[in-house]
């Protein structure tokens, strides 16, 4: 299993006058999870978006290595799996159609999507617009794991999930870290009980 690693140093980001991230640094290796906590507005989501390549930091560096080489931002963006509260899908299409579309984009076998549907207990023929918030959250997990990413970026990953949903997703996360040697950066307002938490980062003053 080739190693993957994430390292970011002095990441800074502001929005207009508001300085949201002030020089944040950490290291994450294969099979490790970094837990990022902080109050609302402390920059957790911003950090994750920077790591995902959706936002460019104003200062600092983000280095992600996979298979022995460093990935550029554009590659990193396509390689990560992101679960975030503002991730939305096509309401006019069914769950299966959405996953099928993203599987095509990601050049991944469509059956992988159906497989995840089953594991997460998602109704394949329901329109996404009619999903409950818990089901939507499960769909976000399916989207994130579709292409078997090595780096999972999870922003409030268990939000809105019921007991079944949370146990299914926790199982998937454990698989990702243990069997697949993947990394994860998990942001949550409060502490989460997780195995293999190798590091903690607390944002905000």
């Amino acid at each position, binding site marked *: 299993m080739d190693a993957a690693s994430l390292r970011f140093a002095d990441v800074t980001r*502001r*929005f*207009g*006058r*508001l*300085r949201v991230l002030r020089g944040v640094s950490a290291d994450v290796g294969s099979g490790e999870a970094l837990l990022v906590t902080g109050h609302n507005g402390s920059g957790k989501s911003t950090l994750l978006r920077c790591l995902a390549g959706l936002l*460019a930091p104003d200062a600092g560096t983000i280095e992600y290595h996979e298979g022995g080489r460093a990935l550029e931002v554009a590659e990193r963006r396509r390689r990560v799996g992101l679960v975030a509260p503002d991730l939305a899908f096509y309401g006019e299409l069914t769950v299966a159609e959405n996953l099928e579309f993203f599987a095509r984009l990601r050049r991944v076998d469509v059956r992988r999507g159906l497989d995840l549907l089953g594991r997460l207990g998602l109704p394949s023929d329901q329109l996404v617009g009619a999903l409950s918030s818990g089901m939507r959250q499960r769909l976000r997990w399916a989207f994130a794991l579709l292409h078997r990413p090595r780096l999972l970026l999870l922003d409030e990953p268990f939000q809105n999930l019921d007991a079944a949903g949370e146990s299914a997703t926790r199982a998937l996360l454990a698989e990702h870290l243990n069997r697949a040697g993947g990394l994860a950066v998990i942001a949550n307002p409060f502490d989460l009980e997780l195995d293999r938490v190798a590091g903690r980062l607390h944002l905000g*003053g």
Partner: protein
Amino acid sequence: MKTILAWLLWLWMCLVLYGAFLYARPAMGFAAGQSSRIVFFHVPMAWVSMIAFLAAAVWSARYLLGGRRAEHDRAAAVAIQLGLLFGVLATVTGAMWARIEWGAFWNWDPRQTSITLSLLFYAAYLALRSAVEDAETRGRLSAVYALLGVVITPFLYFIVPRITFSLHPEPLVNADGKIDMDSEMRQVLFASFLGFTALFFWMHNLQCRLQALADRKSAHFYE
């Protein structure tokens, strides 16, 4: 050093004015001969406006390829603002001359058309900037639009005039064409061109510095 250069520029422009009104003789074959002196201002300003837009494209490319530095974005935006200023002045002086020479302020003749469409394009650039709040997105989108301008402008200056000419083949079409210029006129025109170009870069430098100060001032951060 800068002050000396600024004073030199002032002196140069005074010489240009002297040359335009006293040194050069009015061109032959124009209705009101003295009115031809407007060429010493109208033409250089039109040219400088084009140089300004080209410079903006260069700065936009530097912004995109050279690390997204705010100073490049600022330089591009200021260049376009000045390009619009010079362009509008060129259009107005052109219209004034057209009125004197050919009796009408506006004729949609090829050159008037081209410059107007070009100005519309770059005015849209400013509209785009004011519609984007995030500095990074604003810089990125404006840079793209400025570069798009480089692609579109040749169409505005070469293809559109051909069409408007063929759509309005009236004998009244103004050929803003070759003026018989004697050597004195050429000297003054060239001097004026140099002067206006220098003026553009001087104004650009000033405005960029002002803008940088304003940006720094408004950038006090909340913690």
